[in-house]
């Protein structure tokens, strides 16, 4: 996602990471009790994963996260007027990139005075499973996170 953020930054596309609850709380990254704890744990994205986008925090109660669906790794794309253009219940950079390419082309067509009318479309996209990478993430969170995921899904790492 950082790659596409960089790719589109010169076209007035803003990309942010919005920090939510801990989906898989572990010993190193436990569930949040305070906003300061949440702020501190968000630093792990930079320190351990090298996230380069601006990171913002949702409220401790998860107001924005819950209003937008509460899923652990969603991506949403908004227009300048706040219209929801794209929503996905899982983040896949290729899917987001294809959507952003499309909407930037729409903006160019509008500037060229083409008359465009919106319509709604639903589709299913596909992401590559990365069980090893997902498991490494759980290990970083702590043994508790690994154990609980294994117990919930029978040891089958589905990410």
């Amino acid at each position, binding site marked *: *996602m950082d790659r*596409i*953020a960089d790719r589109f930054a010169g*076209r*007035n*596309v*803003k*990309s*942010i990471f*919005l*920090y*939510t*609850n801990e*989906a*898989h*709380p572990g010993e190193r*990254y436990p*569930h949040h*009790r305070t*906003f300061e704890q949440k*702020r501190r744990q*968000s*630093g792990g*994205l930079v320190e351990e994963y090298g996230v380069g986008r601006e990171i*913002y*925090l949702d*409220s*401790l*109660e*998860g*107001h924005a*996260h*819950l*209003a*937008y669906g*509460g*899923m*652990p*790794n*969603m991506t*949403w794309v*908004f*227009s*300048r*007027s*706040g*219209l*929801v*253009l*794209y929503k996905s*219940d899982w983040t896949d950079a290729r899917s987001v990139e294809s959507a952003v390419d499309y*909407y*930037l082309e729409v*903006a160019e067509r509008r500037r060229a005075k083409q008359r465009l009318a919106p319509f709604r*479309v639903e589709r299913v996209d596909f992401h590559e499973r990365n069980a090893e990478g997902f498991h490494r*993430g*759980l290990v970083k969170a702590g043994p*508790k996170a690994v154990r*609980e995921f294994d117990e*919930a899904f029978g040891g089958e790492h589905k990410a």
Partner: protein
Amino acid sequence: MTTPPPAPLSVEDYNYDAFVEEKFSKLSLFDQSPAAGEKGPDFPIWERRSGDSISLSDLWRGHELLIVEFGSFT
């Protein structure tokens, strides 16, 4: 920006302490979220380092597009 309505879950339910279905399934609200083509609800958010508050609308207003990835370390 107006004050957001109360969150649908308590702080404790939202920040569940264990990844067990009876806890994490309470957050599965995607089917009830705004539809594509609707205006997105606005909320305050806080920049990680400075702690400065800004609203989502401040960000989408100033840009052709705003991409928001939701997530956490875990």
